[in-house]
C-alpha cells in the first residue's frame, strides 16, 4: 500500500538539465513543485571538488557518476531475429545519474541544429524529391521550425553560459564564425575558448583547403560570467576533466553551475533524491495523469505523489521506459507502422583520423571537453544528397579534450596491445598524437526502435526496455564519404603516421566501446497523434497534463551534440505552459 504525499501543482521526474529548467521557470510562476530524482544529490562542493574528482579510475573507468545498470538498464538486439541481451555494464552510452543528470558529466559541446535539420523531409523533397528516401527510413520534419525556436536557443545559450563566435547574426556572415549556421539573433554570451596546438594545425590545414574553420561552441566559461538567474561561472583552466566528471571549478555549464542554486532558494520548490519514479498514474479515462508512484529508497516503500501536471525529464531512455510501463501511448510496431511509443530511436554516426607526429608536443591533458576547431563544410546543408547517395552530414572537430592515460592512449597501427612493444609505444607516442573527428547525423528507421523486453526485469519487477538497433546503410555511406574527404585533408598535415577509423558498410552495432550518449527519439514530436507521442510543445497527445522533455522528442537525430536542441525545446515547452496552458489546461494543439 503506497504512502501518499501532499498534492503538488507540478511533479518533475528527473532533475537534470530539463527538469531544472522546468523547475525554475514554473517555480517563478508561483507553482508548488516537487522534483523526484532517482540518484544522489550532487553539488560542486563536496561531490565534484578538487582533487577528488580528478580520478580517472573512479569516474572515467568505473563510472561512479553514471547510472548503475543494477538499478536500471536496457536489453539490446541488432534486429528482430536476435534475442535481446542485457546491457550489463555501461559501454556504448553512459546515462547520467543524480541531481544534474547527464548535464554534470557532458563535454560541453553546444550546438543549435541547422534550420534544414528541423524540416529535413521537406528539405529533401524540395531539392531531390522523396524518391531518394531509402526504404525503411522514417524521415520527418520537426513540428516546430528553427525560426520559432531561435529565441529559445538564444535564451538557453545565455542561461548555460556558452563561449563561441557567431558566424551568422541575422543573416550577416561574420569572419571566424560558422558561415553555415542558421541565422542567430545574438552573439554568444562569451568569447570563444583558447586554441590548442592540434586545433591550430587543423585550422591552418582547413584554411589552406578553402574550408571555413571556427572555434567549437562550448558550454565552458571562457571568462567570468553571470547568467540571467544570477548564477556565476568562473573561467575554465583547461584541466582536461570534463567528460565523465563534474566540474570542480564552476566553469562547465551544468544545472549545478547555471540553475540549481537559484532554484533551491525558492520556497515553492522541493526536491527529493533517491526517489525513483516507477509509474505515471492515469485518471480512469486515461486522458490525464493524476501523479506518479515512486520508490523511496530511504523508507523502502512506494509513495504516490499526486500532482496537477507531470513533467517527464529523465534521460531519454528512461523517459521512454517510464511511458511504456505506464501505458501513456500505444507502443510502436515496426511491422505495421502502427503505434508511436518507442518509434524513431536514433543515435550518432562518428569516425575519424588520428595523426602521429614524433617531434610535436600536444600536451593532451590541456583541454576541455568542448575544445577545438570545427568545420561545417560537410554538414547537412552543404551535402548534395542526390549526388552523394545518402541523407545527412557531419561536423568535423579537432582539439584535445583529455589526456587521461587509461582511456586516452592513442597508438599508431601495429603497436602491440601489451608487452615490451606496448610499453615502448606509450613512451614514444603519448603526447605526440592528435585527431580529427567527424560527428555525424543519424536518421530514424522502422527497424530501430524501443519496446519492453519479454524476459528481463528490473529490481522492481518491471520489464526492462528493449532496444532494437543497428547501423543502417544510409548513415554508413555518409561516414564513408567523410572518410574520402578527411583522409586527403589529413594527408596535407604531414604527420609521420596516420590512422583512420570509420565504420564500413555492413558494420554491426557493438555495445562495448564508448560511442556517444546521444540516444534520441522514442517519444517523438509530431504534427498529429498518429505519427508521434507529443505535439510541438512536447505535450503528450494522450494526456494534456503530461509534458515530456529531452532528446526523446527528436524526430531523427541531427549531426550535432544534442544539448542545445534539448534545452531549446525545454524553454519552448515551459513558455507554452506558462503563457498558454496554466490559464486554461487543455491540449495546446
Amino acid at each position, binding site marked *: 500500500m503506497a504512502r501518499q504525499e501532499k498534492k503538488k501543482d507540478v511533479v518533475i521526474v528527473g532533475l537534470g538539465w530539463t527538469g531544472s529548467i522546468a523547475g525554475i521557470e514554473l517555480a517563478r510562476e508561483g507553482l508548488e513543485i516537487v522534483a523526484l530524482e532517482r540518484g544522489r544529490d550532487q553539488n560542486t562542493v563536496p561531490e565534484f571538488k578538487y582533487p577528488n574528482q580528478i580520478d580517472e579510475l573512479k569516474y572515467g573507468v568505473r563510472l561512479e557518476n553514471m547510472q548503475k*545498470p543494477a538499478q536500471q538498464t536496457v536489453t539490446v538486439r541488432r534486429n528482430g531475429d536476435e534475442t535481446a541481451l542485457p546491457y550489463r555494464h555501461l559501454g556504448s552510452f553512459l546515462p547520467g545519474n543524480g541531481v544534474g543528470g547527464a548535464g554534470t558529466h557532458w563535454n560541453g559541446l553546444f550546438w543549435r541544429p541547422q534550420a534544414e535539420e528541423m524540416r529535413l523531409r521537406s528539405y529533401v523533397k524540395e531539392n531531390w524529391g522523396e524518391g531518394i528516401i531509402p526504404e525503411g527510413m522514417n524521415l520527418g520534419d520537426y513540428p516546430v521550425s528553427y525560426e520559432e525556436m531561435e529565441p529559445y536557443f538564444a535564451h538557453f545559450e545565455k542561461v548555460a553560459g556558452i563561449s563561441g563566435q557567431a558566424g551568422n547574426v541575422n543573416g550577416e556572415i561574420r569572419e571566424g564564425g560558422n558561415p553555415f549556421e542558421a541565422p542567430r539573433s545574438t552573439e554568444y554570451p562569451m568569447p570563444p575558448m583558447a586554441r590548442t596546438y592540434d586545433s591550430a594545425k587543423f585550422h591552418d590545414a582547413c584554411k589552406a583547403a578553402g574550408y571555413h574553420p571556427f572555434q567549437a561552441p562550448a558550454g565552458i566559461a571562457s571568462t567570468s560570467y553571470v547568467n540571467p538567474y544570477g548564477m556565476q561561472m568562473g573561467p575554465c583552466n583547461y584541466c582536461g576533466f570534463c567528460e565523465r566528471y563534474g566540474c570542480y571549478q564552476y566553469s562547465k555549464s551544468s544545472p549545478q553551475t547555471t540553475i540549481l542554486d537559484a532554484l533551491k532558494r525558492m520556497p515553492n520548490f522541493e526536491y527529493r533524491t533517491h526517489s525513483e519514479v516507477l509509474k505515471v498514474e492515469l485518471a480512469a479515462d486515461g486522458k490525464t495523469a493524476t501523479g506518479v508512484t515512486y520508490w523511496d529508497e530511504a523508507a523502502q516503500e512506494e509513495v504516490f505523489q499526486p500532482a496537477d501536471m507531470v513533467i517527464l525529464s529523465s534521460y531519454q531512455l528512461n523517459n521512454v521506459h517510464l511511458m511504456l510501463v505506464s501505458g501513456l501511448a500505444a507502443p510502436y510496431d515496426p511491422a505495421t507502422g502502427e503505434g508511436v511509443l518507442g518509434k524513431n530511436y536514433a543515435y550518432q554516426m562518428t569516425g575519424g583520423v588520428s595523426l602521429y607526429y614524433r617531434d610535436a608536443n600536444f600536451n593532451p591533458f590541456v583541454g576541455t571537453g568542448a*575544445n577545438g576547431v570545427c568545420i561545417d563544410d560537410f554538414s547537412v546543408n552543404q551535402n548534395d544528397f542526390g549526388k552523394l547517395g545518402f541523407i545527412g552530414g557531419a561536423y568535423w572537430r579537432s582539439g584535445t579534450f583529455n589526456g587521461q592515460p587509461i582511456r586516452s592512449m592513442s597508438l599508431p597501427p601495429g603497436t602491440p596491445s601489451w608487452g615490451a612493444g606496448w610499453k615502448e609505444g606509450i613512451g614514444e607516442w*603519448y603526447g605526440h598524437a592528435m585527431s580529427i573527428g567527424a560527428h555525424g547525423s543519424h536518421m530514424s528507421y522502422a527497424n530501430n526502435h524501443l519496446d519492453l523486453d519479454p524476459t528481463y526485469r528490473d529490481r522492481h519487477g518491471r520489464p526492462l526496455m528493449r532496444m532494437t538497433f543497428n547501423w543502417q546503410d544510409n548513415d554508413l555511406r555518409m561516414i564513408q564519404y567523410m572518410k574520402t574527404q578527411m583522409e586527403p585533408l589529413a594527408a596535407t598535415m604531414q604527420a609521420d603516421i596516420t590512422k583512420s577509423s570509420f565504420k564500413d558498410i555492413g558494420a554491426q552495432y557493438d555495445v562495448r566501446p564508448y560511442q556517444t550518449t546521444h540516444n534520441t527519439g522514442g517519444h517523438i514530436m509530431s504534427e498529429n497523434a498518429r505519427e508521434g507521442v507529443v505535439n510541438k510543445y512536447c505535450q503528450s497527445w494522450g494526456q494534456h497534463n503530461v509534458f515530456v522533455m529531452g532528446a526523446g522528442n527528436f524526430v531523427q537525430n541531427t549531426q550535432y551534440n544534442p544539448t542545445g536542441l534539448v534545452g531549446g525545446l525545454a524553454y519552448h515547452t515551459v513558455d507554452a505552459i506558462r503563457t498558454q496552458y496554466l490559464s486554461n489546461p487543455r491540449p495546446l494543439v
Partner: protein
Amino acid sequence: MTDLPGYPSRRGFLKATAAGFALSGVAMSAKAADKTPPVPLDQYERSYFTAEEWAFVMAATARLIPSEGNGPGALEARVPVFLDLQLAGRYGAASDWYMEGPHDPGAEPARGWQTPLTPAEVYRQAIPAFDAWCADTYGKGFAALSPQDQDAALSALQKGEAPLAPELREFFGILLANTKEGYFADPIYGGNHDMQSWVYIGFPGARAAFREWPERHNVKYPLGPVSITGERA
C-alpha cells in the same frame, strides 16, 4: 625547475597545489621518494587472491608490462596490489552491473559481458583453467614457464587458442584492462607506485590547472605529476 632535496620550497608547494586550493597539510606535498618503502610484493597481505592466484598475477602482469626497457614494469608499479584490491571491492563483485539471468555466455562478443560470473569469479575460475592448459601444453604451470613461453601462452589466451569455457571468455580482456588501469590509475588504488608511469609518459596526474597552457603551442609541459593525496614526483 628542480627543488632542493629535503627542502619544501614555496614554489614546489604551489606546483603541488596547482589549482591554488590549500591542501590540508604541507606534509602531504612531500616528495614521493621521501616515503617509507611499501611492503615488498612477496610479503603483501592479500585481500582477495589466493597464494596460487597471486603467483599467477605476479607472473602474468610482469609479461603484460615487463620491467625491461624504459619506464616501470607492472611489478615496479605494484599492479598486482591494485588487482587484488579491485577484485576485493565493488568492481570484483560487479556491484553496479545488471547480473540477472538468463545468461548467454556464448553470445557474440559484440553483445557485451554476458557471463553469469563477476570479474572476481572470472579470475578465480580462469586462472586454474589457464594454468591447466599451460601444464598440458608446456609441462608446467604459467608462473613456472620461461618468459618466452609465458608470452606465447598469453598470446594464445588473447587469440582464444587456449580454450576456456565461454563463461571465462572475458578473462584475458579484463586481465589486460585491469593491468593497464593499475599501471595508470592514481596511486591511492595501490598501483602506479610513486606515479612512475605518469613520469614515464609525461602525464601530470591531478594537477588539473593549465590556464596559461592552451596557446603555448608545441612546448612540452615541464612539471612532473601530483597525486590526489598531494604526492609529487
